[in-house]
């Protein structure tokens, strides 16, 4: 008797641990080795950025005219020194703060603003939608890099302006995706049912639309972070973003450009960091896309 009971118990399906949609996505993401490794690398860089003052062996601003352009592995300069004798390792660690901030912030801003525009346009539909989307079309007449450089150039060099111009660059593509996803959701029966039962538009958007559209928009937005990192550091590289002596990877790449004839392998390190972060975000975004089964 007890045997059968035990057997029955063993055969009964183990109740799945309570996990929401995001728990399931995270579980799938964790089984994707590429996404997992990318996520861990990004997390480590993020932690390094947060704890930079404690991690960095030296000050990122301390110059030394005697120790300029030291090669990798010099005593006291594990990754060499730059054109003003500053410790490159410390500057790379501190640089992660600004570089991540100016790379990720524009996408976050654009995600909020672009989603709002796109969802409203898609939900309201009709003439309002056409007008909003035609304005968005105008921004599509500019290649992203050109638009970023043009705006940053016109507004004048500086961090805030570079953030602002990149935000403007990423709003149109996000709004376009948000609009197309919302338009698809709008015609679904349960939205019609909610409307018929007297729910107000805002309630419908909040309760029925957001949950269905934010996922795909979010996945799309994460795929833009890589481009944003490259562009943000690129603006600094051109001299339109961070200003010396701030440690920022793109700017470091720029100031060490002449050092490629003396100490080439130190000069390319900041670019290596941009590349690492950018490729990790791309692979994480790819993993997220398949984990959430989003088709755009």
């Amino acid at each position, binding site marked *: 008797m007890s045997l059968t009971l035990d057997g029955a118990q063993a055969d009964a399906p183990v109740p799945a641990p309570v996990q929401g949609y995001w728990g399931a996505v995270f579980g799938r993401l964790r089984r994707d080795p590429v996404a997992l490794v990318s996520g861990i690398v990004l997390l480590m860089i993020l932690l390094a950025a947060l704890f930079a003052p404690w991690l960095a062996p030296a000050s990122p601003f301390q110059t030394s005219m005697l120790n300029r352009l030291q090669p990798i592995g010099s005593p006291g300069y594990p990754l060499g020194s730059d054109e003003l004798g500053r410790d490159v390792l410390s500057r790379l660690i501190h640089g992660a703060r600004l570089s991540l901030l100016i790379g990720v912030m524009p996408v976050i801003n654009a995600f909020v603003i672009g989603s709002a525009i796109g969802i409203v346009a898609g939900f309201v539909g009709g003439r309002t939608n056409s007008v909003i989307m035609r304005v968005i079309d105008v921004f*599509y*007449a500019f290649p992203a*890099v050109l*638009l970023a*450089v043009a705006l940053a150039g016109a507004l004048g060099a500086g961090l805030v302006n570079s953030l602002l111009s990149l935000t403007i660059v990423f709003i149109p593509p996000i709004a376009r995706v948000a609009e197309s996803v919302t338009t698809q959701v709008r015609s679904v029966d349960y939205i019609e049912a909610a409307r018929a039962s007297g729910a107000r538009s805002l309630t419908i958007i909040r309760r029925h639309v957001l949950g269905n559209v934010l996922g795909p928009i979010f996945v799309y937005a994460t795929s833009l972070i890589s481009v944003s*990192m490259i562009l943000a550091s690129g603006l600094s590289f*051109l001299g339109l973003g961070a200003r010396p002596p701030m440690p920022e990877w793109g700017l470091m790449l720029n100031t060490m450009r002449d050092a490629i004839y003396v100490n080439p392998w130190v000069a390319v390190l900041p670019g290596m960091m941009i590349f690492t972060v950018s490729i990790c975000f791309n*692979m994480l975004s790819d993993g997220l896309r398949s984990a959430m089964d989003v088709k755009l």
Partner: protein
Amino acid sequence: MPIYFLKRVLYVIPIALAVSFFCFSLVHLSPGDPMDAVVSPDAPSEVVAMVQRAYGFDRPLPEQYGRWVLRAVQGDLGLSAANGRAVTAEVFSALKNTLLLAFAASLIGFTLGCVFGTLAGYFQGSLLDRLVTGIAVGGVSVPHYWLGMLLVIIFSVELNWLPSSGAGPGSSSDWNVEWAYLRHLILPAVTLSVIPMGVVTRTVRAMVADILAHEFVEALRAKGLAERQVFRHVVKNVAPTALAVMGLQLGYLLGGSILVETVFSWPGTGLLLNNAIFQRDLPILQGTILVLALFFVMLNLIVDLAQARLDPRIQRG
């Protein structure tokens, strides 16, 4: 059917006007007086007034915009604030070099992208597929200005095989089909080609894999068609989307070349734009962006029309 084409062509007009308005506004977005680049701030006021009249800065804004558009239509984009030369001539001589670079880069990038993408799509899940996918992700993730520096270090500094800057021997900016010029093109073109290579590889791979999963491919094989002929069917299905992506990429290269041109001192629109920003030469800034954007708009038009021709479903949708 011609309705779609007509509508698409006419749509260019409002877009072009909006683009011109945006370019015009750029000057007034910028802090400081557009006059700053022309006359020094402590110049006597009558000189400032005279130069203002010469550049038309003393008129009301809507009138300035109207005049600017009317003259732009006639091919006159004003004078450079930094050196007084005609903006149109400056922009078009730079555009020639940018186009050369963009075409060379797309030739490399598109060829590799199509070959890689097709191979990866055909042998999905294989080692080759994973290798190609890796290269493609690398291509779209690499900061190309950094890749440019890397190539300069390897091929110019260490190996001394190829020049690291300029478009030709000396400081010449006129281009000839000679080895002396061609070798200047190699590094910037390869650098710029990695992005379209990555994007095209990813698109073609996904498309080929998608088409191969269709039942009609199985049917073609079942009726005894040689693999070469099956491949022709695949190509026909992939072509419209692939061509559209390539067309857009060519356009992105025009704008995207600014960083690469800066790294290699390539005398194109990117370098012109960069110099204009730092000299606060607003007429050049305005003119370059206008020309590039209009070029991009036309390219988009051509891509859409070509795609509609290749894929009749688009005209109906």
